[in-house]
């Protein structure tokens, strides 16, 4: 399997990761679904389920439409303590590539840490894990076909509202 992409493609890949982090940290939730293709999926899964082959996720959003439903929930329907979040995302690791050096499909992974800060509190590590992604080339650039966030922080500090 090909594992080489040209620098331009790798640059686009880096941008996808950093743009995603910036979007979900900016409280501009409407931007979040746009990182996915229409049949793209977003799953947030505790590591214990993943490693035991158990299918349950904390969130399993099976289409961009469902991701939009989550945005509506975050913005309009879920009462919660407001908080800031900050993603620190590691350099993506390319696992495999399909297509030429400009890649149709990239399988890649990256570690992440999300720090949460409530208005009257300190900044604490909120969720730590890694992304397992399938990224595809579209006329609008690289998009997520699927993002699986596998988190180590299995004991969630009360609740997760905003996207990881």
């Amino acid at each position: 399997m090909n594992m080489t992409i040209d620098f331009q493609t790798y640059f686009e890949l880096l941008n996808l990761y950093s743009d995603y982090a910036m979007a979900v940290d900016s409280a501009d939730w409407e931007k979040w679904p746009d990182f996915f293709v229409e049949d793209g999926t977003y799953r947030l899964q505790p590591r214990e389920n993943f490693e035991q082959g158990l299918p349950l996720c904390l969130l399993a959003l099976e289409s961009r439409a469902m991701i939009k439903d989550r945005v509506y929930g975050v913005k309009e329907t879920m009462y919660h303590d407001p908080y800031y979040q900050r993603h620190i995302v590691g350099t993506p690791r390319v696992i495999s590539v399909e297509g030429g050096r400009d890649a149709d499909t990239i399988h890649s992974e990256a570690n992440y840490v999300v720090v949460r800060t409530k208005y009257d509190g300190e900044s604490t590590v909120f969720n730590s894990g890694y992304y397992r992604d399938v990224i595809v080339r579209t006329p609008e650039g690289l998009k997520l076909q699927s993002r699986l966030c596998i988190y180590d922080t299995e004991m969630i500090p009360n609740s997760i509202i905003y996207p990881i």
Partner: protein
Amino acid sequence: MTGNATVFPKDPTWEGEGSSRIPFWAYTRDDLYQQELERFFYSGHWCYVGLEAEIPNPGDFRRTVIGERSVIMVRDTNGAINVVENVCAHRGMRFCRERHGNRKDFFCPYHQWNYSLEGDLQGVPFRRGVKQEGKINGGMPPEFKLEEHGLTKLKVATRGGVVFASFDHDVEPLEEFLGPTILQYFDRVFNGRKLKVLGYRRQRIPGNWKLMQENIKDPYHPGLLHTWFSTFGLWRADNKSQLRMDEHFRHAAMISTRGQGGKNDEVVSGVDSFKDQMKVNDPRLLDIVPEPWWNGPTAVMTTVFPSVILQQQVNSVSTRHIQPNGHGSFDFVWTHFGFDDDSEEMTQRRLIQANLFGPAGFVSADDGEVIEWSQEGFEQKPAHRTVVEMGGYDIGDSEHMVTETLIRGMYAYWRKVMGQ
């Protein structure tokens, strides 16, 4: 009440006979919390430990907790389920560190004391001493008996694939503990079918553990706090519903049949969470398919005091395990499951509807949040009290959900057992 009343009462007493005004100090005092562990979690009650389906094979074990005491649920070579306390008989170590696995026996790494899957002590290294230059050094005293130093064994009861245990070997049978009314709702879900575990979700909620029992004994809030319930009619005041309790008022079932949703001014006018125009973009989130075993109701939420909540909300079923750790915090562990004869389609449906529940759920995330905020209010002025008087002061079964009777029932029981 005036603003400068005592905030930290010196000799707190619960005024009057009723249970509709719960003092804040019932949630904030460490001494009461320890009594609750002793009287509810460690004696006189059955506590949830897990599902048989989590340990299908001989030697399978899963570490869990009752109150604050770490225990191990294990299937032995005869296929029986044992629950033993995770504390070595020698030096008191919590020896089992893995969360689950398969073992022929247990051993404590510190001095290698070794226990059978039933919890019996099998061997102690150097028990007869160590021979050196013709003499025997050390060893346990001759009167030391292995059989007097096993792990603490709990009484175990299983029903319909659910495992309960008790440190109290004189506890009444599980069926009597639940009582005939609650047993009927228990058996509705756990009717002998084999269960299929779908996975776990865990959250640490910074609030007193009783607040979670109360949350699921409170049919007044779901149609108000939870947009999804009010807007889509999954749970709200105009649903056909019943509230049922056991004779001690400690356990309860809230039974509801989904209404049409939409606009009914009587129940949604002025309700902030009601969203008239809301529609889901992906209908799979609400792709509800009635199952024959429901026998009518679309949701039955059962609270088994003190340790577990049994959830059936449309096609999503789970156990929710309450694991207190201090007066102001508990871990809440969700085990979602399905049934062995579920089609792949039904499994997918259960998994997608699970988005409504758990620590990030469209519905349940708010419950954790409001519990945290309640605890903050209690800590702020323990001398104050709540007002749980929706539907009056009485305790009794109900044919509607505009009442807090189940919470009053739980506190009547609490006062009796706690002597408060």
